[in-house]
């Protein structure tokens, strides 16, 4: 039996905007089991990204409890959450977010460095293997500006998987890519996910992408519904 890796209990999130309190999430609860792939869908402004940033520990809920890997992150401070992220969480962003002054290889090894893995050779080997896996062998020394959008996102995939995270969060990973490139990136994402047994949480507008996940959560008016 699979165990719960992310557990969300009745969380709410409100922000103050122009002196008005705006309720974005209004009491959401669900569980995600280890190894599951979950898509979060919803209209623009429904609170998908807010939910994801709470799950990933980038932000704190207004109330409620979030546990990741059995630890309550909603009560952790900034530094503790940063440590948790560096140890167990990977990210893929819509706009890639590679460091412009680092080449492809260095961008991929960066999470290892942040984690404190100081063995440069082993870091480089792991990174090279992953770059090869995403089809960028021989492009290690290229800077982000020398790579196309699809290539940059593939570097970002390699970067996300290099630490073998327990959970991978992907925020509209194909939002900035054309259809064909997007398809390629998606294939890679799911292949690597399957290979590493990572739990995948994906925010997307794309129903086809959502279909490839085992579960889909739909956010609407601050509430969460499991799609059939």
């Amino acid at each position, binding site marked *: 039996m699979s165990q719960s890796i992310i557990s969300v209990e009745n969380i709410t999130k409100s922000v103050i905007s122009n002196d008005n309190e705006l309720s974005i999430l209004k009491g959401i609860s669900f569980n995600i089991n280890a190894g599951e792939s979950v898509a979060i869908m919803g209209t623009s402004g429904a609170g998908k990204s807010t939910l994801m940033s709470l799950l990933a520990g*980038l932000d704190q809920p207004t109330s409620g409890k979030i546990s990741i890997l059995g630890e309550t992150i909603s009560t952790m401070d900034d530094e503790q959450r940063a440590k948790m992220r560096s140890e167990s969480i990977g990210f893929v962003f819509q706009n890639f977010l590679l460091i412009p002054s680092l080449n492809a290889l260095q961008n991929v090894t960066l999470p290892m460095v942040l984690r404190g893995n100081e063995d440069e050779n082993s870091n480089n080997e792991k990174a090279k293997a992953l770059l090869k896996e995403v089809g960028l062998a021989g492009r290690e020394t290229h800077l982000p500006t020398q790579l196309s959008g699809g290539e940059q996102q593939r570097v970002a995939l390699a970067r996300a998987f290099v630490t073998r995270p327990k959970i991978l969060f992907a925020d509209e990973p194909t939002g900035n890519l054309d259809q064909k490139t997007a398809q390629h990136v998606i294939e890679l994402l799911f292949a690597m996910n399957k290979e590493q047994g990572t739990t995948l949480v994906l925010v997307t507008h794309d129903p086809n992408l959502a279909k490839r996940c085992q579960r889909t959560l739909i956010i609407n008016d601050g509430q969460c519904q499991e799609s059939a």
Partner: protein
Amino acid sequence: MKTNKMIVSWSWREIWFGQLWPVMVALTLIIACVVALSTLALRVEKVMSNQGRALLAADLVFRSSNPIPTTLIEQAEQAGLTVSSQSRFQTMAFSDANMQLVTVKSVESNYPLRGELDLRSTTGQPIREVKPGELWVSERLLSLLDANTGDTIAIGDAELKINGVIKYEPELAYNPFNSIPNLFIHGSDLDKTGAVQVGSRVRYRLFINGDLQTLANLQANYELQAGESWVDQNKESRAARLMDKAKQYLSLTILMVILMAAVTLILTCLHYARNRSETVSMLKSMGASRAWLRLWLSTQVLIMFVVAFVAGSSLGLLLEYLLRIPLVDILPKELPSVGVQPFLFAIGVALCIGLPALLIPLTRLLDAPAINVIQKRETQYSKTSWWLLLLPITALITFYGTNKLVWMVLIGLLVLFVLLAGLSYGLLKLLAKLKWSAAFSLALSRINRSPRNSMMQLSALAGSLMLVALIWLIKSDLLGDWQQTLAPDAPNVFAINISPEQQEGYLKQVDTLELPRSDAFAIIRGRITAINDQNTIESEAYQNEEIRILKREINFTWAKELPVYNEVVAGEWTGEKTVSIEQEVASELGITLGDQLTFEVNSQIFSATVNSIRAVEWQSLKPNFVFIFSEDVVADLPATWMVSFRAETDQTPLVNQIAREYPTVTLLDLRTMANKIQGLLKQITFSLTGLAGLGVLAGILLIFTLLRLSLSERKREITLYRTLGASKKRISNTLWAEYGLLAISAGLVAAIAAEIILFSLMTWGFELPTQLHPTMWLVLPLLAVLVVFVSLISVIKELLKPLR
């Protein structure tokens, strides 16, 4: 450790890719300027004080009208000080052909203790000391006596053979009226002359060398008697006034260059922090701790400081060397060492400016929230690092606390800025209301749409232009004033002791030889004895050691009209039984218009009423007098006459001809000295011009950086226009119009501000006359447009690339 290696190499790339290199350049510039200028200033100061000592012939001189007390000599020797004594008196010297009044200086073999003595015998080899039995005479005396080296002349009772001429001696007197030809004999020959007897007027000097503290102790432990005084180089500071102004200019320039570099530093840092906040958010989302980020950022800061220090110091030393080249004739071969002081000072300045400029935006960068990678949020930045601003403020107050000029510039800058930036902004707003071509109205609407941004740009641009203008114009105004002081046609030969009978013929002869001359002045020696019936001996001013005019005879003259080169600052040159007085003496003695002054010449007492007060430029080498009487007061008193004229180097035969025709007239040939002073001025001019050029360069670099930063921040917007289909021409026209308008208005604002600050600086700071600078009104906007042109050209290609 490998992580650190990676951080170092990454930081290095971050500096170049992340546009932090202008920060490094600005830091380097600050350090280079501070090192170069403070080294030079220190060296020049040391040289000046060495020269001051050379002029005194020692570190400290004891002067007395009585023989030097042996106790003083013993005290000095016991304290380990070097001493040398001199006695001097005036007597007649006789050759076979002629006789002449001379000043005899009898010195010891170790004379001079400071400075250079250059004696030349027939061999032409320089000789540095006077030995017993020797006689050295000034060249002028040789010709006056019609004698040659090897001849024997009589000085008092002694018959001495002339060993050669005095080529150069310290203790040069710069008073054309009291100068009587010199000769040197050794102290052991003094008695032979028989000149020193009871009642003879001999003046004694004791030259003393040693470290400052021991000298000060000696001075403190000795109680001065009547007729005794101490002289050290601080008192002989007339020549130092020129240097003082140069030094003030130097420190002002350093400050302005630092100011400009600081602005570059702050702007680039802010720009960097804005651009990097996304990267920091991303690193945080991947789990980077604050400690790691701090390490990452501080490595960058450290690298920049280290590189800037190494590059800046080397550049600074090179710069100092280059600035020194034109000064090579003034500075001695062996330069006084300056130690590490300039370097420490430079590091201090760089830290004071660099730390707040770098750390405030970088600490804010640490606050960039991780969530920004997914959702842009407004961030509350902590203000904890603002205390760093205390660094430069404290330093400024400590170093420049009492410097009027500096505060004038700083406060003036601030006030003018707010005023003028507002003014030009209003002007731009007004312009927007008028009808313009498409490009101009787009540009104007763009400027007016983001007023805060536009104002920042406008003030930064205008500010740097203004500093550039100030650096250059202060230099020109200062130098202009110095050049006037010693105009190229200033008189350089003085003829004195012209008898009334000779006067007419003498002047005619000077005119026939076509030597440009001054008016002739009668010279009557006398004293001022009473001010408004109060005897001057009883006055307060008489007790003041600094005021000597009441204790000695001075030169009076009379005139029908006041010399044109004396500016009358109060009163009018009219009336009978009147006198015109020089303003500084008037204020020292508390004399005002209408005061009744009493004078004594050869036991004859007479009075005159003060009718005017004049400003006199003593350094100008023109005949000048403290008191000028109306003709009726003194014209009947016995007088000799003086006239000054200008002779070029190739006119020496003419000067000699006059000297032969009028052997009783004393000629003071100041050409060597005047040439030396003029040469000195020329060299200082050259150095200051180089310095000012450097300042201007720093300013232009700042403007260039500013514009490039501002343009690169527009990239996204321009790319959008481009993507929406705006033609390249339309975009570049708009950019041209926008930045052109900014440049022109900034140029005008800068010109107004510079004119105002310059006026205040010259009037209250340097105390020099002021004038308007019409060329600047044209040059500044043009310069601004030119720099805009270069900056635009350098980035426009990049800007016009369409989005990929």
